[in-house]
């Protein structure tokens, strides 16, 4: 192992030495340019022994240089801004559209990078002369075409920062594309956008080929001016301009960093203000400390028949720290999780605009995280208990995440469903050939179909629309299976291999228990086994020509569902 480590280390040293040499190779001219701008002589590329700002003063008081710099900055800012706007549009839509849009778009984006720029510049020059396109417009259009690919590849690198679930959830919640770009995409790729802008700016500022071909008038850009000066005079003026550009770039990076630090500090303060982390509940803190100190007193007395005060004091402080660091944090997470569920619920019920932004951001990912955190901290085995409305939202969210496989049981007749879960049947969800088993007697179903036809059909249509097969099992048989497996409830829902929910729809508690998956949990697995057993007994409910038909469930389909669940749950 030691030899292996040594081997790896020597390999790292070799790479480092080689890279150091390459970096030196890259940086020597940089150092030379900076030194040249301060100590350069006129006429030829030579250095003198006199350090001065002579060339800086000369360049920044020379009207032709100032004009060239202004022109270059104008072209750079205009072309970079337009290019970034177009790149962002393509980047955003390429997250949605695959196939042809991405293929054609990618081909168009790649082309300017690999097509000989010289030939493009020549074509642009000849066409702008033929169609009398103004010089600035030709340059800006040419620059944009080249900058778009550079910026796109920078943005493409930040693909992993965008979770596609957020985009889907935002659309489902009714957000417009402009809103998603503004509130979801831009905040997440802000740094990449800044880098893309900087790279576009630098490219356009330094671009020589297109400028060289197009510019005929006196409005030279900086590179064009340097190029024209090659045969006349080589002096440090160009070094002065680019040294200034280097210093301004470094200053910009510094300022952006400073801005980010201030922003994050402010945000941290806000968070701290909202939920003071320590000593918020001083009574509970002291109580925990006292309990631990008393435990220490008892243990010491029984063990040594002597009580050391310093040990008691230490126990007290250990209790205080334990409460503040561990217990309090768990409570905070719990409160935070509940808060999210409440706020999203308010949004769903009232469509209140105030909560829209929050809901977009928190959807799916964060809610899932909060559930799993709650689960990890509190109910290692029991899961999380949530109210029925919350349960409805959770199930809807799971469908929206397009995981899609849902298998559930219900001991209510179809018409009761609307009354119990008012939001469920009006929601639109994405599911993949799921199944729901109703634990009802045949006569019960026929009566419900005859007496509450509208509600029954609403239930039936929703399931057909969402590719959920409706099955039924005799109540007595179902309860027998439940008793054999020693389960507490027969109404359950299974989402993929992620969650098992146990419904307790009867008042007064109106509470559901949610389990996070974990294949190791025998408890959740036994519910999955329960469903599989029911599936063997199940018959399919169909409405044909306004008649209710209960017929045997297709064997192939049964096997399909059976295999799917077994593979998901490793049963």
């Amino acid at each position, binding site marked *: 192992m030691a030899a292996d480590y040594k081997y790896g280390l020597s390999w790292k040293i070799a790479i480092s030495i080689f890279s150091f040499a390459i970096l030196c190779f890259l940086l020597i001219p*940089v150092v030379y340019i900076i030194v*040249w701008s301060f100590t350069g002589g006129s006429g030829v590329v030579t250095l003198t022994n006199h350090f001065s700002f002579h060339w800086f003063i000369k360049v920044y008081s020379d009207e032709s240089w100032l004009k060239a710099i202004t022109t270059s900055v104008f072209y750079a800012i205009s072309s970079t801004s337009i290019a970034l706007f177009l790149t962002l549009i393509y980047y955003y*839509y390429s997250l949605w559209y695959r196939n042809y849009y991405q293929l054609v778009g990618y081909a168009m984006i790649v082309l300017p990078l690999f097509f*000989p720029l010289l030939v493009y510049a020549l074509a642009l020059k000849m066409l702008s002369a033929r169609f009398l396109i103004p010089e600035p417009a030709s340059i800006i259009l040419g620059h*944009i075409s080249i900058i778009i690919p550079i910026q796109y590849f920078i943005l493409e690198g930040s693909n992993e920062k965008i979770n596609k679930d957020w985009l889907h959830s935002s659309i489902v919640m009714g957000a417009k594309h402009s809103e998603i770009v503004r509130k979801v995409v831009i905040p997440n790729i802000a740094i990449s956008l800044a880098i893309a802008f900087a790279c576009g700016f630098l490219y356009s500022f330094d671009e020589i080929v297109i400028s060289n071909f197009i510019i005929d008038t006196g409005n030279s850009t900086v590179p064009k001016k340097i190029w024209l000066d090659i045969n006349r005079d080589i002096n440090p003026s160009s070094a002065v301009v680019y040294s200034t550009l280097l210093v301004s770039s470094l200053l910009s990076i510094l300022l952006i960093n400073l801005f980010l630090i201030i922003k994050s500090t402010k945000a941290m303060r806000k968070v701290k203000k909202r939920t003071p982390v320590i000593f918020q509940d001083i009574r509970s803190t002291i109580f925990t400390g006292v309990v631990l100190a008393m435990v220490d007193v008892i243990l010491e007395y029984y063990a040594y028949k002597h009580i050391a005060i310093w040990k008691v004091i230490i126990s007290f402080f250990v209790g205080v720290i334990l409460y503040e660091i561990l217990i309090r944090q768990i409570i905070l997470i719990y409160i935070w999780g509940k808060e999210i569920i409440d706020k999203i619920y308010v949004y769903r019920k009232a469509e209140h605009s105030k909560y829209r932004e929050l809901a977009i951001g928190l959807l799916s990912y964060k809610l899932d995280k909060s559930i799993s955190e709650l689960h990890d901290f509190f109910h290692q085995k029991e899961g999380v208990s949530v109210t029925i409305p919350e349960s409805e939202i959770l199930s809807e969210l799971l469908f929206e995440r397009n995981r899609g496989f849902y298998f559930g049981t219900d001991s209510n007749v179809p018409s009761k469903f609307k009354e119990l879960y008012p939001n469920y049947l009006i929601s639109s969800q994405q599911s993949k050939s799921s199944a729901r088993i109703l634990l009802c007697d045949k006569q019960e179903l026929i009566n419900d179909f005859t007496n509450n036809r509208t509600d029954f059909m609403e239930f039936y249509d929703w399931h057909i629309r969402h590719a959920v097969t409706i099955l039924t099992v005799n109540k007595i048989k179902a309860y027998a299976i439940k008793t054999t497996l020693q389960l507490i409830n027969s109404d359950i829902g299974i989402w993929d291999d992620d969650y098992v929910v146990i419904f307790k729809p009867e008042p007064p508690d109106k509470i559901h228990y949610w389990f996070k998956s974990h294949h190791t949990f025998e408890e959740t697995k036994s519910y999955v086994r329960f469903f599989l057993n029911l599936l063997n007994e199940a018959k399919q409910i169909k409405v044909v020509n306004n008649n209710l038909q209960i017929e045997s469930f297709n064997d192939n389909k049964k096997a399909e569902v059976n295999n799917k669940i077994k593979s998901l749950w490793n049963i």
Partner: protein
Amino acid sequence: MRSVKQNLSKSFLRFFPILFLLIFFVMPILLWIFLNQNLFSIHSLIHPPFFKQFWVTGLIALITAFSSVVLSYPVALLWWVNKKTKWSVTIVFLVFVPIILGLLTRNYAWISILSYTPFQYSFEAVILVMLYIFIPFAFFILIQGFGNISNSTIEAAKTMGANIFESFRKVIFPQTLRHINIALFFVFANSLCYYITPAMIGGGKYDMIGNIIWKYVDKGLFADASNISLTFIFYVLSIFTVVLLFFFMRRKKYLSR
């Protein structure tokens, strides 16, 4: 509640970037070819004018492409090894700094530095400065490839008993192959039409095809410039079509993974 499909179908804005490039990049080239088609002849294809410059261009571009990828690969590897540390940021910054300092100014600096060596205005000097210009670009393309490799893969290879060279050969290198190809092609394509460095560093002795085109444009002889460009572009596009097709096939394969 609007469905995703309904919402997307209204977004015509999505075609803007593609249309822009189609109108302002592809159309000018096609129109230029169309307007100058009478200049194009089979004779100039078989016996291209400036035959020597064609070869010099190809040779310089090939040497530059291979060397810049070979030289920047270890730097990119070092960047990957130090990923998520301040060293990776430092490496990126140090490679990026020369780009800020301008192409022409860097060429000036090299004229001066090379004047202290016997390589001034030589073929080697042109290659050296071309490498200097393209190494940063190759590096930035390569780190895109390295960025996708998880550090855990090398750990996994180690636990399977692979030594450091085997891990590199069988785990890291294959995963960066796609970006090596892209970097090679990018540097090759861009150095083909390069004329700044050969003009400044080569002292006019090692002119590439770009220098000839530029000389004609500078004198206002656009018809001659177009004539050479058309022959040049015919050869270049034939090679590029094959290479791009290869890339698209690879990308399709890559996306379908």
